[in-house]
C-alpha cells in the first residue's frame, strides 16, 4: 500500500533521479577528461617516434616546431630498409625470437601438463620452484652466465660468446618459467572429467595432451606464445653482454650501438629504427589484444 503512496509523490523522485544522472554525466565527463590526459601521456613517445621518423635530417637540425612535419619524407625508412646491416639485425631478432618461442613451447607445455595433472613426488614443490625462478631477474644472472659461457669456450673450444645463437640458450630462462606457470593455470582449469574420459577410452598421456589439453587450452597457449615472443624480441641486457660484432647483434642492441656514433646522433634514423623495432610487438598486440591481456593477468590470477 505504501508503495502506491510513494509512486504518487512522483515529482520528488524524479528530481532526485535527475540529480543522480547529472552526477553520473559529470563523473563520466571527468573520466573522459582524465583518460584523454593519460592517453596523451601514454602515446606521446610513440607518436613522436613517428613524427621524427618522417623528417629529413635537415629539418631535424633546423630546430623547427618539433611536433609538426613541414617536409614529410620517407628517406629514413628507405635508408634503413636498404641497409644490409639493419636487415641483418632484423633477421637476427626474428630468428632468435621464433626459435626461442618454439623451444619454450616444447619445454613448458609438456612440463605444465605433467605438473598440472600427473601428480608425482615433488610436483607441487617443482611448480612453486618454477614460479620462484620467474622472479629471478636477468640482471642478477648476466655476469655468472657470461663467465660460464666464456669458460665453456675455453674448455671445449666451442665459441659461444659473440654468436647470436648463444641467445637461444639464455632466453628460455626468461620465457620458460612464466609460460610453464600460466600453462599450469590453464591446464588445471580444464575439468578432470575430460581427461578421465580420454583415459577410459584408452588414450595415452601423450594423446591426452595433444588431443584434449592443447586444443582446449588454446587461448592460454596463444597467450604464452605472445608472451615468449615479446620477451625475446624486447630483451636488451643479454644481447648487449653476449654479442658485440655488428653481424651478430639483435635489433634493440644494433640500433643503439650502430646508429649512435660517438656524440653524433642521427635521430631521424634512430627513431625510424626504434619504430620498426617496436612494430612486431605492436602489430601482434593490435590483432591479439585479448590474448595479450589474458596472458598479462594470468600470471597473478591463475595458479
Amino acid at each position, binding site marked *: 500500500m505504501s508503495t502506491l503512496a510513494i509512486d504518487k509523490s512522483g515529482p520528488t523522485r524524479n528530481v532526485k533521479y535527475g540529480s543522480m544522472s547529472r552526477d553520473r554525466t559529470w563523473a563520466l565527463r571527468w573520466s573522459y577528461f582524465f583518460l584523454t590526459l593519460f592517453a596523451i601521456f601514454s602515446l606521446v613517445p610513440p607518436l613522436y617516434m613517428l613524427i621524427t621518423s618522417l623528417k629529413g635530417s635537415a629539418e631535424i637540425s633546423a630546430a623547427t616546431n618539433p611536433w609538426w612535419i613541414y617536409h614529410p619524407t620517407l628517406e629514413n625508412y628507405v635508408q634503413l630498409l636498404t641497409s644490409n646491416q639493419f636487415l641483418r639485425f632484423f633477421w637476427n631478432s626474428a630468428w632468435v625470437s621464433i626459435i626461442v618461442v618454439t623451444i619454450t613451447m616444447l619445454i613448458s607445455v609438456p612440463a605444465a601438463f605433467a605438473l598440472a595433472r600427473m601428480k608425482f613426488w615433488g610436483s607441487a614443490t617443482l611448480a612453486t620452484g618454477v614460479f620462484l625462478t620467474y622472479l629471478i631477474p636477468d640482471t642478477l644472472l648476466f655476469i655468472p652466465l657470461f663467465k660460464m659461457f666464456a669458460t665453456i669456450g675455453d674448455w671445449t673450444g666451442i665459441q659461444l660468446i659473440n654468436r647470436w645463437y648463444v641467445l637461444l640458450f639464455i632466453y628460455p630462462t626468461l620465457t620458460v618459467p612464466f609460460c610453464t606457470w600460466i600453462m599450469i593455470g590453464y591446464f588445471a582449469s580444464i575439468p578432470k572429467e575430460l581427461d578421465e574420459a580420454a583415459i577410459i577410452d584408452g588414450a595415452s598421456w601423450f594423446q591426452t595432451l595433444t588431443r584434449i589439453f592443447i586444443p582446449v587450452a588454446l587461448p592460454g597457449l596463444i597467450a604464452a606464445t605472445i608472451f615468449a615472443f615479446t620477451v625475446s624480441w624486447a630483451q636488451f*641486457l643479454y644481447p648487449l653482454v653476449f654479442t658485440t660484432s655488428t653481424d651478430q647483434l639483435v635489433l634493440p642492441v644494433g640500433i*643503439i650501438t650502430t646508429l649512435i656514433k660517438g656524440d653524433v646522433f642521427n635521430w631521424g634514423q634512430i627513431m625510424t629504427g626504434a619504430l620498426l623495432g617496436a612494430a612486431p610487438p605492436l602489430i601482434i598486440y593490435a590483432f591479439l589484444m585479448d590474448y595479450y591481456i589474458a596472458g598479462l593477468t594470468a600470471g597473478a590470477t591463475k595458479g
Partner: protein
Amino acid sequence: MVDVTFQPNGVAAARTARKRGGLRNALRRKSTSAFLMTLPLIVLIAVLVIYPAFYSLHLATLNKSMSRFVGFGNFEFLFKRETFWLVVKQSCIFAISAVLFKALIGFIVAHFVHNVPANKQRKWRGMLLVPWVIPPAMSTLAWLWLFDPSYSAFNYTLSFFGIGPIPWTGDAVWARFSVILVNVWYGAPFFMIMYLAALKSVPEQLYEAAAIDGANWWQRIWYVTLPMMRNIIAITTLFSLIVTFANFDIVRILTAGGPLDHTHIFATWAFRVGIEGSDIPLGASVSLFMVPILAVAAVFILRDINKRGNEA
C-alpha cells in the same frame, strides 16, 4: 614417444587384471613419463638459473683476475667506496618512488576506465596499454630524444609557458626524475590492467549495499574496493618492486648512470663494473646486493599465492 607405446598396455592391464602389481606398474609408468616431461624444464632451471645464481656467490669471492680467493674482500672494498652507497641510495629511491607512482596512477586510471561505458572500455584500454607493449629499449630511445639537451620537444613546448630549458638528463636531480618518469610511463599500464581486472571482479551488490548505507565515494573505495582488491594490489606491487629494482634498460639508455654516477642503480652499475670494467667478481658482488630485497618480496608473494591456493 615412450608413453605412446606403453600407456595403452598399462591401461589395458589395469582394466583386465586388477592386480596390485599391475596397478603399481601403471603408477610407476605415469610418474616416469611425468618425470620425462618435466626433465627439460628441470635441466634448464638447474643449469641456467640455479647454478649461475650460486656461481655468482663463488665469483664474488675471487680477485679481479679470478685467480685468487679473497673471501669478503670485494664486499669490504665496496663498503669503502662512496659510489656504492650512492648506488644503494639511488636504487631504493628509484624502486620505491617508481612503484608507488605506478601503483597510484594505475589505480586511478583503472577507475576511470571502469567508469566509462563497457563498449568504449576496450578502445581506452587498448590505447593506455601501448607503453607496456613497446620494447622498453625502443621507447626509452624516444624519451631520450624528447629529453635531448638542445632539441628537446618538451623544452620547446614549455618555453611557451615561460618555463626555462630543463636539463632533463644533465642535472643529477632532474636526471633521477626523468628516469623515474620513464619507468612510471612504462610500468603504470601493467598496474592499470591488473587493477581493472580486479575491479571487474568486485560484485556490484557490495557497492549497492554501501550506497544504501549512505557511503560516499571515498568510503566506497576504502571499505569495499580496497579490501576486495587487497590480494591483487599486494601481488602486483611486490612483483613490480622486483622488476623495478632489477631494472636495466631504461637507466642504461637514458643516462648510462650519469651525470657523475648520480642515476646508477645496482643493475647498471654491475654492468659498468663487471662487463665494461671487466672486473667480473666485483660486478657479481654488486648484483648480489639485489638478492635480499628480491628474497623478501618473493617470500611475501609466495605466501600470498599459497594462501589463495588454499582458499580455492
